C-alpha cells in the first residue's frame, strides 16, 4: 500500500504547508530573488530520473565480460559497437551504449562522471517502493519527506517559493518538503492566468483569486493546502513567465525530455533564482523488446537521452553556465542480469548513476563480474542481480556537502561523507 502511504504523507505534510502559506508572508518577486541570490550561490542542481528501472548493463556495458554475452544472448550490445570509456580501478573495461555518442564526448571533455553499481542493501524490486527509497534516501522508512525536500526545509526562511522547480506534473517523493510545495511547471508558456474578459479584467480577477486563496481556512486543512498552492502559483507566475519564450542557443529535439530541459536551461539562463530542478523521462521498464545488436527499444531510449542532454549541456556551455550546473541522473533500480524470454529484462538491483556538468569527470566504482558462480561478491540474489558497491546516499552526501553547501548529516540523518566517489 505504498501509494496510500504516500498520499497520507502528503496530506499530513500539507497541513504544515498550508499553515505556512496562510500567514501573510507572500513574497514580492524582488524580495524572493534577493533571498535566492543569497542562498543560491549561483549553483544549480538538475536531478534527472529515468522512470521504470534503467538497465544499467545496457548503458555502461561490461563488454569484455563473457558472461554478459552468455546471459544476454539476444539483447547484448556487440563489443565492436560499444563506445569505450576505459577501464575501472578493478581493471574491467566498460563502454557506453553506441547511441550515447554525445555523452561520450562529454566524458572525454571531463564533463561526465559514471558511478557504477550505485544502490543499497536489500534493493526493492517494486517501482513504487524503489522510487520512494531513492526519493526519501531512507530505505527503512521511505514514506517521509524527500531528501531534496529536507534540503529545502533547511534553507533560511523565508524560502523562495521558486527555490525548486518540478518539470513533471506530479510531485516526486524527493521534493516533498515540510515548508513549501514545490511548483510543478512542465511548460512555462502554460503557467499563466487567463480571463474570460480579456487582459484588463484579468488584473481584477487575479486580485480576487489571490484574496480568496489568502483566506485562512484554519479548520479545513485540505482547503488551506489548495489555497496555499494557489497563492504559490500567483507568487511565482511572473518570474516563470520570463522563461516562456526561451529558445536557447541550440536547436532542442522535440521530445518531452528535451522540452523539459530547455525549460530548465531557460530558467537558469534568465536567472530566476531556482536552485533545484527535477526532470523525468519514462519508458525504462523494459520487460520486453529491448532490441538487439545495439538497435531497437533500448537504443531508442538512449538516443532520446543522448540528444536531449547534448542539447542542454551545449546550450549551457555556450552561455558559460555549465560550470555552475550539476546534472545528477538516477533510476529506481537496474534490471536482472539474465534476459527473459521477451527480449527484455525484469526488475533487478544496483545500477548506474551519471553526473554531468560541474563534475570531476571519470569512471567511478567497479563493474560487476557477471559470472554466476558461488560467492561472487559483485552479485546477489543467487547471482541474478548486481550487488551495490556505492551506497546512493553517499552520492547524495557528496552533492549536499560539496555542491549545495549544506552538512549532509543534517539532511541524510547519518554520516555518509567520504564513502562515495569524489566526483564533485
Amino acid at each position, binding site marked *: *500500500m505504498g501509494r*496510500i502511504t504516500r*498520499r*497520507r504523507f*502528503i*496530506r499530513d505534510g500539507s497541513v504544515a504547508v498550508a499553515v505556512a502559506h496562510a500567514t501573510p508572508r507572500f513574497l514580492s518577486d524582488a524580495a524572493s530573488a534577493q533571498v535566492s541570490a543569497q542562498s543560491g550561490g549561483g549553483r544549480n542542481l538538475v536531478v534527472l530520473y529515468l*522512470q*521504470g528501472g534503467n538497465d544499467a548493463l545496457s548503458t555502461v556495458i561490461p563488454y569484455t565480460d563473457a558472461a554478459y554475452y552468455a546471459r544476454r544472448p539476444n539483447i547484448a550490445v556487440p563489443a565492436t559497437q560499444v563506445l569505450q570509456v576505459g577501464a575501472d580501478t578493478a581493471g574491467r573495461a566498460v563502454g557506453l551504449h553506441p547511441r550515447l555518442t554525445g555523452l561520450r564526448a562529454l566524458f572525454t571533455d571531463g564533463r561526465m562522471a559514471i558511478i557504477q553499481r550505485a544502490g543499497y542493501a536489500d534493493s526493492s*524490486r*517494486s*517501482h*513504487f*517502493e524503489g522510487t520512494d527509497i531513492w526519493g526519501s534516501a531512507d530505505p527503512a522508512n521511505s514514506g517521509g519527506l524527500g531528501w531534496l525536500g529536507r534540503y529545502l526545509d533547511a534553507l533560511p526562511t523565508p524560502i523562495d517559493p521558486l527555490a525548486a522547480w518540478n518539470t513533471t*506534473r*506530479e*510531485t516526486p517523493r524527493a521534493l516533498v518538503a515540510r515548508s513549501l*510545495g514545490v*511548483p*510543478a*511547471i*512542465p*511548460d512555462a508558456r*502554460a*503557467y*499563466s*492566468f*487567463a*480571463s*474570460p*474578459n480579456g487582459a*484588463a*479584467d484579468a488584473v*481584477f*480577477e487575479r*486580485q*480576487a*483569486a489571490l*484574496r*480568496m*486563496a489568502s*483566506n485562512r481556512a484554519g479548520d*479545513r*486543512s*485540505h*482547503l488551506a*493546502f*489548495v489555497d496555499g*498552492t*494557489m497563492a504559490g*502559483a500567483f507568487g511565482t507566475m511572473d518570474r516563470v513567465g520570463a522563461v516562456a519564450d526561451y529558445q536557447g542557443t541550440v536547436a532542442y529535439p522535440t521530445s518531452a525530455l528535451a522540452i523539459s530541459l530547455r525549460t530548465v536551461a531557460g530558467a537558469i539562463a534568465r536567472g530566476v533564482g531556482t536552485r533545484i530542478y527535477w526532470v523525468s523521462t519514462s519508458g525504462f*521498464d523494459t520487460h*520486453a523488446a529491448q532490441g538487439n545488436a545495439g538497435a531497437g527499444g533500448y537504443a531508442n531510449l538512449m538516443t532520446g537521452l543522448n540528444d536531449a542532454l547534448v542539447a542542454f549541456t551545449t546550450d549551457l556551455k555556450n552561455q558559460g553556465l555549465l560550470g555552475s550546473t550539476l546534472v545528477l541522473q538516477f533510476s529506481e533500480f537496474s534490471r536482472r542480469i539474465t534476459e*527473459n*524470454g*521477451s*527480449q*527484455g529484462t*525484469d*526488475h533487478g538491483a544496483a545500477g548506474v548513476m551519471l553526473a554531468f556538468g560541474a563534475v570531476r569527470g571519470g569512471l567511478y566504482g567497479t563493474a560487476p563480474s557477471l559470472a554466476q558462480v558461488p560467492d561472487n561478491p559483485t552479485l546477489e*540474489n543467487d547471482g541474478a542481480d548486481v550487488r551495490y558497491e556505492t551506497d546512493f546516499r553517499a552520492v547524495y552526501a557528496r552533492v549536499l556537502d560539496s555542491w549545495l553547501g549544506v552538512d549532509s548529516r543534517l539532511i541524510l540523518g547519518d554520516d555518509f561523507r567520504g564513502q562515495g566517489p569524489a566526483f564533485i
Partner: protein
Amino acid sequence: MPIGELPLDHLLRRAGFGTTAAESAAHSGLSLAAATDLLLAPERVADDTDTHIGQEGYAAVTPRGTTGLFSPNTVIDDARQRWLFRLVHGQRPLQEKMALFWHQHFATAYGKLAGAVGTIQATKMLALKAGELPGPQGQLELFRARGLGRFRDLLVAVAQDPAMLVWLDGRSNTRTRPQENFGREVMELFTLGRGNYREQDVYAAARVFTGWNLRLSAGGNNQDPDSYYEFFYNAGQHELTSKTFTFAVYADGGHTIPARSAADGYQDGLDFLAALAAHPETGRRLARRLWTFFVSEVDPAPPGFVEAALEVYLRSDTDMTAVLGWLFRSPWFLDLRVAFSRYAWPAEFVARAIREIGWTGFSLDTARSAMINMGQTLFEPPDVGGWETGPAWITSGGLLARMNFASTLAASQRAGIARMVPATAARSADAVVAAILERLSPMTLDPDPRDALVAYLSSQGPWTGSDAQLTTRVAGLVRLILASGEYQFI
C-alpha cells in the same frame, strides 16, 4: 435548501459527476434511498448516450484523426472525447465512475500500446465499443460492463485483456524464460498489495501465466481497423511444473498449484487469480481504495470500515455492487462531515464544471487538451500505479490549468451564465453571488472569499445589473468560483 437534499447532492457528486440544471429540477422529489438504488442498477436506465454524440443540445466533439470523421474506436483523442461525453451526458453515472476507478486501479497507458501495435490497434484495445468494429471490446468497455460485478471475474477478464497483455508484456511470456511484469504487478497493485507476497511468489506467478499470450486475427495487420488482437492460451508455451506460493492458493490451505499437462495448464492462472481475489488482503486493499475514492481523502479508512467492507466483499463472493451498496448506505458515507473531503480528479473537475455551467457550442476536445496540463490524460496514466491522486493533483501548474479551463468554459457560456441570475437578484451584487453559488454548489465559502467575489463584481465600476455586466462580470464570477480552492473538492 431543504436539509434532505444535501445528502443527495453529496451522493451525486461522489457516485456521479455532479448535477446539471435540468437534473437538479428533476431530482426535487427523489429520495436518497431511491437515488442510491437507481445508481446501483444501471441496467434499469437506457444506455443510449453515445447515440447523441454530434446532436444538437449536447456538448460537441472535434474529430482529431486525419479522416475528419469522429472515430472513437480507432483515434485515441476521439476515444477520450467519447469518454468525456459519457461523463458529461451519461445516464449511468456510477457505471462511468467505476470505469474511472478501474482505469486507475488497472492503469494501462496508450503510449506503450501504440508503440507496440500501432495507433489503430492500441485505440481499439482501450476503447472499442463492442460490435462497432471486429474484435474484442476495449478495456474501457470491459470496465463499464464488469465494473459493478464480481471482482474475481473482472480480474480474470483483465488478465486476458489484450491491452493488459501488451501493457505488462504477458503477450510474450514464454515457457523457458518466464517474465515477471504481470506476475508482480497483479499482486503488488491489482490485489494483495506490497508486504503480502515475496519475491519467490513473483517468480512463481510469472510461470503461472506462461502461455497467456495474444494473437492477431487471421491475415490481419496493424493498420487495418478490421483486424484485431485477441487472447489465446498458447499451450506450447506454458511451463508445466508445479508452482508453490507463500500463501494459500486453495480453500483447503494448499500453497501449490499442481503440475499439469500443457492442455490443462490454463487452469493455473484461473486458480491463482481466484486465490488472489478471495484473499482478505485484496478485500482490505480494495476497501481502502474505495474509501479514498468515495468517502474521504482527509481521514484514512478506519479499521472498522475496512473490516466491514471486507466482510461484505467476501460474503458476496467479491461482488462490487454489494460492496458499493453497503458503502453508500453506511454511516461513514452518510456522515456529512465527509462532504467535500475528496480532491476532484481533473476528469471530475471538467465534467462537473461543464455539467454545472453548460456546454452550448462547447467542444469536449477543449476539455481533453486542458486536462493534459491538469495532469490527467485519460488512457495515459503515468505508470502501472496510476495517477497520484488526492493532494498530489494539487500542483501550482495543475491549478493554473484548472483556472484557465474555467476561463475558457465561462467565456464560451456567457449567455447561459447570465441567465443563471434571476431577474430579482440582478440588481444586487450580493444576490448575484448568492444565486451563482447556489447553482455551482462548491464547498461553503468563508465570509472573506465570498466578499472577494462581491467586490470583484464592482471592481470596474458600481454594480448595476446591466446586461453588459451580466454577460461579462458574471462570467468572470463563475470563473473565479470554478478556480477557487473550494471548488476543487467533491
